[in-house]
């Protein structure tokens, strides 16, 4: 199996992405609706043309606009699994899977292959049913078996679990995990679900307005997101700014953030580079008056919302000066009552510098 190299520019949709997925690696692609996730997938599958694009799988060039190469979709060996399973309604379950296997096998070979794959996705007993008789989770597992039957070198998954109920999603996720980790295919997973990223992906790529806003290992991105979408996705606060000196970030609104030296970029980073301060809502304390004392970061905010978040109350502040998502603080219901917090009031959010990580904002290097 082989790695997937993608480089695509599509002016019409403001898309400009470049990334590589190693053999056996699964890349989760995150981003708001319209960020270009599905377009990227369509370019890789050869379903949409691009202004400039190079798509390579191993040493096979599938798309190279400069060299006028564009291998037709049916010769790409790129499997696709969408939110809609799209099982052919006029064929039985096994007929569907055999359709995928016919690319490389004769009829009896295709049947054997289909039976093996149906067993692999836990759908062996569904072989003779019609797609209309399946539940959502069953249909998606059969669709996965069908995609695998064509022996793709790359598997593209566009929110394959989005339309399913909890049990159905769990069953498909388990099968996907087994399939994706068992072989050495490159996989690309578009998702909106943190669980999918944690359970299925090795790396994360965040698309914002058609550009790669962030790219790195799952643990890094979730622990220290550098993009607004990544931060919202991981449920942490993010402040953008410029790293002025070791351990200090100056935000767009001129507020100064001190970070924990242990979880902060190396001291030898040149000042003036764009950076982000990342901290968890649980690390934020809320005060009516500006507190003094131990090294703290304090910022004056207006409360935009109060919502229950598990056992805590999440205090959400209004948008930041640069338009990024408002900061959030998790406090106890008692504290909300004691302080008499109301939407629209101005309060101080303070965070100990130990709880703040400062990172370079131009990639996980």
């Amino acid at each position, binding site marked *: 199996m082989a790695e997937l190299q993608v480089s695509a520019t599509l002016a019409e949709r403001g898309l400009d992405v470049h990334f590589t997925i190693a053999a056996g690696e699964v890349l989760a692609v995150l981003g708001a609706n319209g960020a270009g996730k599905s377009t990227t997938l369509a370019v890789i599958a050869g379903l949409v043309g691009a202004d400039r694009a190079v798509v390579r799988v191993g040493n096979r060039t599938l798309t190279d606009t400069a060299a006028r190469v564009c291998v037709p979709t*049916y010769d790409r*060996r790129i*499997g696709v699994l969408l939110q809609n399973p*799209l099982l052919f*309604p006029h064929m039985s379950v096994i007929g569907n899977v055999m359709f*995928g296997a016919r690319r490389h096998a004769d009829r009896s070979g295709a049947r054997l292959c289909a039976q093996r794959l149906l067993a692999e996705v836990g759908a062996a007993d569904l072989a003779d049913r019609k797609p209309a008789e399946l539940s959502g989770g069953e249909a998606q597992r059969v669709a996965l078996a069908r*995609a695998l*039957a*064509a022996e793709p070198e790359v598997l593209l998954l566009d929110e394959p679990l989005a339309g399913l109920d909890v049990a159905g999603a769990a069953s498909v996720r388990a099968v996907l995990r087994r399939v994706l980790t068992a072989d050495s295919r490159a996989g690309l997973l578009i998702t909106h679900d943190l669980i999918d990223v944690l359970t299925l992906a090795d790396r994360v790529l965040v698309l914002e307005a058609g550009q790669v806003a962030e790219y790195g290992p799952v643990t890094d991105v979730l622990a220290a997101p550098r993009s607004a979408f990544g931060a919202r996705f991981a449920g942490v606060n993010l402040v953008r700014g410029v790293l002025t000196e070791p351990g200090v970030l100056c935000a767009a609104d001129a507020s100064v953030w001190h970070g924990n030296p242990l979880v902060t970029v190396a001291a030898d980073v040149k000042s003036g580079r764009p950076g982000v301060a990342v901290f968890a809502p649980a690390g934020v304390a809320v005060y009516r008056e500006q507190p003094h004392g131990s090294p703290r970061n304090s910022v004056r905010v207006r409360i935009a919302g109060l919502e229950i978040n598990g056992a805590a109350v999440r205090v959400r502040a209004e948008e930041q000066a640069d338009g990024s998502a408002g900061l959030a603080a998790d406090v106890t219901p008692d504290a909300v009552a004691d302080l008499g917090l109301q939407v629209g009031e101005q309060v101080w959010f303070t965070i100990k510098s130990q709880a703040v990580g400062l990172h370079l904002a131009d990639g996980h290097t």
Partner: protein
Amino acid sequence: MRPIGAPSGSLPRWAYLPAMAGAVFFVLPLVAMAFKVDWSRFGSLITSPASRAALLLSLRTATVSTLLCLILGVPLALVLARHRGTLVRILRPLILLPLVLPPVVGGIALLYVFGRLGLLGHYLEAAGIRIAFTTAAVVLAQTFVSLPFLVIALEGAARTAGSDYDMVASTLGAPPTTVWWRVTLPLLAPGLISGAVLAFARALGEFGATLTFAGSRQGVTRTLPLEIYLQREGDPEAAVALSILLIVIAAVVVIGLGGRRIAGWSAGG
């Protein structure tokens, strides 16, 4: 208490009056004809040599022209459904033209293409092929008027179906021709059947274009509708009997093969 369950968005009551009148307007002529026919002579009327020749010719030509409609119309409908180019935008209304054109005009138009002095007929004549006023002309006339029925029915079905299944099939390694036969056409089967039934029924009833372009030669170009028109002068009872026969054949085809499909098609657009 009133029984519950009557639809709240029901039609105004007055609408049922014109609706009923419309239904009667359709049914009454058929009933009148059934009264008019001399049932004791019905058998002999519809089995006279002239009638039998006309009936056989009609069934044969309508079948061939339906096949021709399928061969030409299915690719045409799919091209129209899948493409949005300028050519397609110009082409679509032109294909619907035979629907609104008087068939006689269609017949004249065909003469100017396939007639001895026509655009193509000129060359065909030189090659020793004559089409006008032959059975082939009957088939062409019928195809000309019934093709739009098939194309409309199928294009609507193809648009509704979309191309997602075809896309998935191609990611599974199926080349376009395989996708065409194994995915596209099977999924369009309902539209295909309704389109073919409509085309066959229209071909069976074709009169004006046939008379103009193919003439009325017994056993060669005189189809059932032409025979009925001819008999109306000499033997009105035979005309009525043949009309009943034509209605029965059309009814069997339409209701038997595709009544529900056609209903679904018209509801879908």
